[in-house]
Structures are given as C-alpha cells and as structure tokens.
C-alpha cells in the first residue's frame, strides 16, 4: 500500500508542478516580450498587450500541441492496425491493471531498444516503443518496460516531462533545428542587410541559451521519478524480474536513439544520448536493476 499512496502523492505533486511551470513560463515569456518592445519600440502599452497575448498563446499552444510536437520530434509514427498485436495486448492489459485508459501506441523506427511516454493527462496519453525494443525483448521484459511507461502516465510524470520539454526545452529544440539546417544548408546565399543581422543575433542568442534551457529541463525533472516508475511498474506486473532483465539487456545493447536530442532525452526509458553520468537525466542502469532485484 506504500506504493499506492505514492502514486497519488506524486500525481498531485506533478499536477501542481506542471501548473507552476506553466505560470513561470508565462511570466518569463511576458517579461522578455515586454523588455523587447520597450527597448526596440519604446512603448510600454504595446509591450504589455504584446506580452500578455503572445505569452498566453505560447503557453496554450505548447500545452495543447505538446504531445504531437514531442512525438514528431522523436520521429514516432502511430502503430498500424494489427501491426504489433501482442504489443497492443500488453499495453491494454497493463492499462487495466493501472486503471488508466489505454494510451495510443507509437512506433519509432530505430534499432536501439528504448521507449517513452507523453501526454498532458491520463486519458490523452501515448506510449512509444522503438522497433529495436520490440525485436530484442521477451514478452515478460516488454511488459516490464510498458508497465514503467504506464506508471509515468498514471502518476502524471509524463505530463510534467512533456510540458517541460516543450516549454522550457523550446530554445534547445530551436537551436537543434537551427544547427541541423546550418549543416544541411551549407554556406550558400548572401547575407542581407540589417534584417539579416538581427536574425543572426537572435540565432546566436538561441544557440548560447540552448544548453541552459536543456539543463533547466533536467533540473525540473528529478531522477527519483525513474525509480518510482520502476517500482510502480513492478507492482503492476507483480514481476520485478521482467523489468530488471529488460534493463540489463538494454544496458548491454545500448540505448542511444538517433532522433533523440538534449531536449527530449529526459523522456526516454533509458538515456538515449551519451554524456557524463553526473549530468545525466537517468539514474545508472545497474542501480535500477539492483533496486528491482531487492524488492
């Protein structure tokens, strides 16, 4: 019953935090827009109006479109009918066990085994699995991973994470798209006059700010929630060993997903990018396995 209580506690905490996050983002966006129009137009009334309207639109769009933004950023496609019947069975069964509506199932075509869950509420959520995960795990292991993701949905971790990634990680996402287009676009074209200069300045600002934004997302999401989702997942399947052996397998095969980025990394089941453990969004796999085995 300890974990039962934790489910609801952490759901309440996540709900509160996600409202605080939206409020904070609104205030910061408002302040930035207000300052911007004061400096460039010297007009505080315009700044006030512009700030309120644009910030509200930003927060609303980020809230309602966050799931689809994240899913398309991660290269996920909706699973076709009858494509993975056993996966559908597993997800439906575990949703019954958790008492949440069955989430939509998405597939990421990537050989690395990984998974993630997104959604702003329990009844509008999605889970995504990589093709690598589906081909390398046994049914019991897949159940373990799916239970972990459904736990994230049930205790509203996925809501907090999705909002954090879209609202705060927005800058990081922009810089990523910018960098990518710089690589693809090459050097061609001529620099235009003042407009080009302003554009370049904004671009530079975004690139400088991006790592901070990604770091902020990490700070907003505690690593503790991974342990909690492991534990509650194990409680759903009543079989911690399934998840433990899935983690071991994923640790051995490597969980680096091609379409994952700094901004979206915290969403994944196992860390999808390489980097320092100290800055990592995920607790070490060995520690997670150890905790599951000692249940």
């Amino acid at each position, binding site marked *: 019953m300890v974990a039962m209580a934790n489910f609801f506690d952490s759901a309440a905490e996540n709900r509160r935090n996600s409202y605080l996050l939206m409020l904070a983002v609104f205030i910061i966006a408002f302040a930035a827009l207000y300052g911007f129009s004061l400096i460039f137009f010297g007009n505080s009334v315009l700044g006030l109006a512009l700030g309120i309207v644009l910030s509200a639109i930003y927060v609303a769009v980020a809230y309602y479109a966050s799931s689809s933004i994240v899913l398309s950023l991660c290269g996920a496609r909706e699973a076709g009918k009858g494509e993975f019947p056993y996966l559908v069975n597993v997800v439906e069964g575990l949703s019954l066990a958790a008492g949440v509506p069955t989430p939509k199932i998405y597939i990421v075509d990537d050989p690395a085994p990984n998974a993630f869950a997104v959604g702003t509420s329990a009844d509008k959520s999605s889970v995504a699995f990589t093709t690598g995960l589906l081909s390398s795990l046994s049914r019991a292991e897949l159940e373990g991973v799916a239970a972990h993701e459904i736990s994230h949905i049930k205790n509203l971790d996925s809501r907090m994470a999705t909002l954090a990634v879209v609202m705060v990680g927005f800058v990081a996402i922009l810089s990523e798209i910018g960098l990518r287009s710089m690589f693809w676009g090459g050097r061609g074209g001529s620099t235009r006059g003042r407009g080009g200069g302003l554009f370049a300045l904004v671009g530079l600002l975004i690139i400088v700010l991006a790592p901070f934004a990604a770091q902020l997302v990490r700070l907003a999401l505690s690593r503790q929630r991974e342990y909690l989702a492991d534990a509650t997942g194990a409680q759903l399947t009543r*079989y911690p060993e399934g998840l433990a052996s899935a983690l071991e397998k994923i640790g051995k095969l490597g969980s680096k997903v091609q379409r994952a980025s700094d901004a979206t990394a915290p969403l994944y089941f196992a860390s999808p990018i390489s980097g320092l453990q100290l800055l990592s969004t995920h607790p070490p796999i060995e520690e997670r396995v150890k905790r599951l085995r000692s249940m």
Partner: protein
Amino acid sequence: MAFEMVALAFLGALAFVVVFFLLAYNSLVGKRMQIDNAWSQIDVQLKKRYDLVPNLIETVKGYAKHEKSVFENVTKARAAVMGAAGVAEKAKAENALSKTLKSILAVAENYPQLRASENFKMLQEELSGIENKIAYARQFYNDSVMSYNTSIQTVPTNIVAGIFGFAPREFFKTEGAERENVKVSF
C-alpha cells in the same frame, strides 16, 4: 471576552470537523466508484471471453469430434457464468470456465492438424490475451477493494464510513496460486 474566545474556539473546531467529514466522505465515494469501475472493466473482459468460447468450440470440434464430454463441460461452465450473481459466485463460475478452457486446449494437443490450423492459433492468441487482461483487471479491482476496505476500517475515516453506511466490499478470489504482490518501499 473569555466567553467569546471559547465560542470562537468551538466554532473553529466545528468547522474543522465539518471539513474533515466532507473530505473523508468524498474520498470514500471516490474509492467506491473506482471499485465499480474496476468491476465493469472485469465484466468487459469476461464478456469478450464468453463470446469467444463458441468460436473455439466450433474450431476444435472440426478436428476432434469425439471429445463430446469436454465440449459439454465448457458449454455448461459458460452458461453458469451467465447465471452467476454477486462477486463470490461470479468468481467461482469464472474459475470453473477457466479450468474447462484449459482442458479444451489440452485436448487440442492430441490433434496436430488442429494445432497447425491458422484459425486455432489465432483463437489461442486471442484467448491468452483475454485471460491476461482478466488477470490484470482483477488485480486492479482487488487493489481498489483493498484501498477502500482499509479506509473504512481505519481511524478516523471509519467514523464517517460507519455513519453513512459504507460496507466493506468483497475481493475477487481465484483458485490456485495467485501471483504475490511485490513489496515496495521508499
């Protein structure tokens, strides 16, 4: 002055009790609703299995005509499920049906042609999927009953439960070894 203080303290205490009663009552109603919801989820899965049985019998019959007693047992058990009322009785009828379904699958083992048939394979996957979901739905139901029963028996919510007549609910019991719940602590 002293009288006013006492009156104020009394009113404060009264307000506290009223708020507590409201919260406790709402939480109990919420938990009871969750049990009913969990129960209907079990029902949905049971209905699916119920609908699958005639299909399964027809398919097996096509290859194993002589196993009359097995078919009769399944048909009987299926009918019994429909007639069952109440949690305990339903659980018993369900367990009986599960057992006879196992026997039909055991019979199928003796007929290689049946085992190889696509239709049978599909039915088998569907059946095991449904059985899994029944198990999970039952687990959620029992978790919900556990949480509700604990609330109505522990201080202080038991007072509210007693006044408004919240009765304990029955668990959905299964025969044989049930998977043990894991201990989770933080």
